[in-house]
Each structure stands twice: as structure tokens, then as C-alpha cells.
């Protein structure tokens, strides 16, 4: 790990004043579960690290009317155990299989973590090219994207992103110049070049909170190779508005299948006006993966994503205590 100076601001104002306008100069430290590894690999070599854990206003889960405000410092453990957040979100947080990571990792960190793509982590950049040619489409791509069509083939590693998009949540970003809010869907970006970040956060901004509308029928389902300490292979988060027994509106978002969480309007359309049962959930899963373009070693993920959508839908209509 390269050396850096360390700042421990006590307020958001102090913290934003310490951030540089250019990527690479400064990094924000919360749980550290990704940042420290990035710094050890020297993928990130910030001159200054700004610890935000001493900023009280970034902590805690707060209900306000039909919405819940989730501070950036809320840990995955707190989120998984909160009775105040929609099921899809709590289930996504609980899915992180290591208790140590759940204790350390934060909501903000989950959304801002860098891709886990092994080409990226080995220093080949976001698009992983060599002499102008992409390494991934015919390389070691068993855990890479089946949607998006390149030139980025990594998958978004965020556990919460798909659930937050399904729930139509918004994200708040604050810099020394002011603040802005945007739908979580617009936070994730498919980079077309190596210089673009995969998230809409600017280098001088801090993600401060997530604002999540209430939802009665939502769920997240993850398909994993191992039950312990590994990333899921494919996930799905769903949120449904029900009219009696039939679906009035649906948002269906897959995770770990594209450089961003991947929403399927076709899957939602396949469900509207119908009840959720084995047959309709399966049809929605089929519709969700209709546009998939797997790479040389990851066609198996198409089936996993289809099953994740089906199981998330069936779980979303289960009665919960």
C-alpha cells in the first residue's frame, strides 16, 4: 500500500472540503472492505484518505412518512436487521455471506465499490484491453456480463443496487458546492472508455443517504456457487404493486449480469395484469433473459438469472410475519 495522509473530519462540510476535484487524488473511507484492498493492489493510490465514519449525520435509518432514509454509514448488518426497510433491501444485505463484511461494509461502500472483475483488479483497467483489443470476450469470462454488449464486460458488484432500483429509491450526493439527488438507476453507468467511472459520483462528492419508498411486495434472490464468502453468480430483486391478487405494476432488476444492475421492462410487462404463480413467474424469468448475449464461458448465467427472477417473484408474494 502506498503512503497517504489521513483526515478524520467531524462534519460533512469538513469532509467535502478535503476532497479533490480529480479522481485519483483523494478517496473516501467508510468500512474500508473494498478501498483497503484496492490500495494494497495499488489500483487506487490516493494522496489523501478521508475517513467519514466520524460524521454523525451519515449514520442511522430514519423513517419519514412513507419513505425511509438510510445513511451512507449504515452497515449491511444494521440494514439486514432493520424492520423499517422493504424486504428486498434487507434480504440483499443479509445475502452478503460474511458476518465480518456485514459488520464493516456500509451502504455507501456497497454502492461505490469498484468492479470485482479480475482483469480490473490486476490493473488492466475497466475495459480490460491489451493493444487496443478487449481481453474479456474470449478470455476468462465465466463471471462476467451477459448483458450490455460491451465495451465494458465487468459486472456491477453492488448487492443493494438491484434492490434499490426495483424499489425506485433515490440517492443523495453532496459536495462543497451543493447537493443533488438522482434515481439510483441513474447512479450506475456503463463506461465506454477507461477514464469514465462506473458510477455517477463525482470525485469531490460524498454519497450521504438513500431514500427508499415503502413497498409491500418485494424480494431479492441470489444464486451462488458457495454458501460462504463469495459473490453471487446472478441475483434478482423485484418490487410489485398488487391490485388484489394481480400485479398492477412491477420492477424487475437483475444483479451480477451486466456492468450496471440490469432492469428488464419486458419481464415486468409479462407480469402486469396477472397473478404471481409458478407459471407467470417462470414466463417473467424467460422474458428477463431474452436479450442476453453470453460470452465464451458464461452462458450458464442465463439460466441462473432466469431462475433468480422466478424465485424472487414467488418470494415477493409470500406473506411475511
Amino acid at each position, binding site marked *: 500500500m502506498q503512503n497517504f495522509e489521513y483526515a*478524520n473530519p467531524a462534519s460533512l462540510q469538513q469532509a467535502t472540503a478535503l476532497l479533490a476535484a480529480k479522481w485519483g487524488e483523494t478517496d473516501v473511507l467508510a468500512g474500508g472492505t473494498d478501498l483497503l484492498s484496492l490500495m*494494497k493492489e495499488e489500483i487506487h493510490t490516493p494522496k489523501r484518505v478521508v475517513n467519514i465514519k466520524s460524521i454523525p449525520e451519515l449514520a442511522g435509518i430514519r423513517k419519514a412518512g412513507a419513505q425511509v432514509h438510510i445513511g451512507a454509514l449504515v452497515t449491511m448488518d444494521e440494514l439486514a436487521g432493520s424492520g423499517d426497510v422493504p424486504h428486498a433491501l434487507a434480504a440483499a444485505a443479509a445475502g452478503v455471506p460474511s458476518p465480518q463484511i456485514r459488520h464493516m461494509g456500509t451502504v455507501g461502500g456497497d454502492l461505490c465499490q469498484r468492479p470485482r472483475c479480475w482483469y480490473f483488479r490486476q490493473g488492466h483497467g475497466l475495459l480490460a484491453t491489451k493493444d487496443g483489443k478487449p481481453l474479456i470476450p474470449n478470455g476468462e469470462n465465466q463471471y462476467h456480463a451477459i448483458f450490455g454488449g460491451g465495451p465494458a464486460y465487468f459486472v456491477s458488484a453492488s448487492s443493494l443496487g438491484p434492490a434499490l432500483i426495483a424499489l425506485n429509491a433515490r440517492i443523495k450526493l453532496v459536495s462543497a458546492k451543493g447537493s443533488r439527488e438522482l434515481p439510483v438507476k441513474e447512479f450506475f453507468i456503463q463506461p465506454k472508455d477507461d477514464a469514465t467511472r462506473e458510477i455517477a459520483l463525482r470525485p469531490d462528492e460524498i454519497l450521504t443517504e438513500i431514500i427508499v419508498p415503502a413497498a409491500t411486495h418485494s424480494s431479492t434472490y441470489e444464486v451462488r456457487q458457495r454458501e460462504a*464468502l463469495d459473490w453471487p453468480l446472478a441475483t434478482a430483486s423485484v418490487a410489485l404493486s398488487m391490485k388484489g391478487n394481480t400485479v398492477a405494476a412491477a420492477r424487475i432488476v437483475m444483479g451480477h449480469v451486466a456492468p450496471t444492475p440490469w432492469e428488464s421492462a419486458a419481464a415486468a410487462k409479462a407480469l402486469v395484469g396477472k397473478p404471481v404463480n409458478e407459471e407467470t413467474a417462470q414466463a417473467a424469468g424467460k422474458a428477463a433473459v431474452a436479450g442476453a448475449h453470453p460470452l465464451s464461458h458464461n452462458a450458464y448465467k442465463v439460466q441462473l438469472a432466469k431462475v433468480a427472477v422466478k424465485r424472487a417473484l414467488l418470494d415477493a408474494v409470500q406473506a411475511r410475519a
Partner: protein
Amino acid sequence: MKSKKDPGSSAGPNPGFSRRGFLGVGLGSGAVGVGLLEKPAVAEPAGAEVVGPQAVPVTLNINGKPVNLTLEPRVTLLDAMRNYIGLTGAKKVCDRATCGACTVMLNGKIVYSCTVLAIDAQGKEIQTIEGLAAPGELHPVSAAFWNNDAQQCGYCTPGFVMAATGFLKENPNPTDADVRHGLGGNFCRCGTYMGIRKAVLEAAETLKKGGASNG
């Protein structure tokens, strides 16, 4: 022996340390090699003060005792414990928040000490495997590992014992499935999971009966 002028790089382990020499040494004497500062413990670094990159005073509260060090901000809690304090129970294996061998408790919750900056662990209660039981005694979880042959090479064991202890605090009546899920943050490359699960279930019973040591 370390002086407080030492640059404190994570790349530079303490010269003159015999790893074996520290086995069985409690924290009281483990302060050997630590730059003992005159200043009292700093509970909270001031506002937006920026420190480093050179070594700065860092005070850690480990196993109930304050330890004053001089460290660069980049030194992890794991490296601080192993290379500057002589607490080598927590092991450095993956060093990437993946394997669990470095597990310690921070304010009562298990974390990967390889992925916490030492400077960031100030003001928190750090508990390590060395502080789990009095010298010469076994904590019920350690005793249960012994009784159930829950280790082969033993390198992952301190991390597993800490993870299991943290798990049992939150889940005093676990099922076998709960144990599998609850220890999902630790790896054993020897594959001793069967023994570990049995040990954790036995430790749960011992702790419920009042936690007598030595099995």
C-alpha cells in the same frame, strides 16, 4: 526494539522480533517494542486535522489496555498487532478481507483486522485471541475446538475461535445450519469444518451452563 522515530511502514516488520518468543506472552509484557509515548491516550483525533503520511501517534485499546504506538496511517490493525505489539494470534493470510484468519472483535463485533487501518481503530475496544481467557486458561470456545479436533494445521484456528465467539454472543442457541451460515466469513484450507461445527455447538452448551473453562 522499536523507537518512536521508526517510520512505521507496513512493509517493515519489527527487527529483532522472534515470532516464537512472543508466543504465550501476554499484552502486559507484549508492550516491548512499542514506542511508549509520554502523551496520554488520544480519545478522538481533532476535527478535520490531516495527519501523515509520516508516522503519527496512535493509541489502541487492546484487550482492555491502552497501547501507544507511532504508525503511518497506512498500517493496518493486523500489521500493528503483529509487527509492532507482538500479538501474533491474528494471522495474515489473504490480507484482502476474504479468509478470516485475522478476525478480531472491534467494539464486540467480529471484523477482519487486515482491512481496518490501525489509526481508524482508535477509541474502540479491540479484543484479540490473546485476550479471550486468562493466561493458562482456555476460553470455552477454545476448549471445544480442542475437544472436537477442530483444527489440523491450526493456522485458521485463532480467527475461527474469534468468529465463533462473536457468533455465539449473538446466537446462543444455534442449529448446525446457523453455525454454517454464521461462520461464513472464515476459511479452513484443511477442510476441518465438521470438527469446527461440532466444537461451536459444544461451546454453545458450555456457555449456556455458565461457561466453565477447560471443557
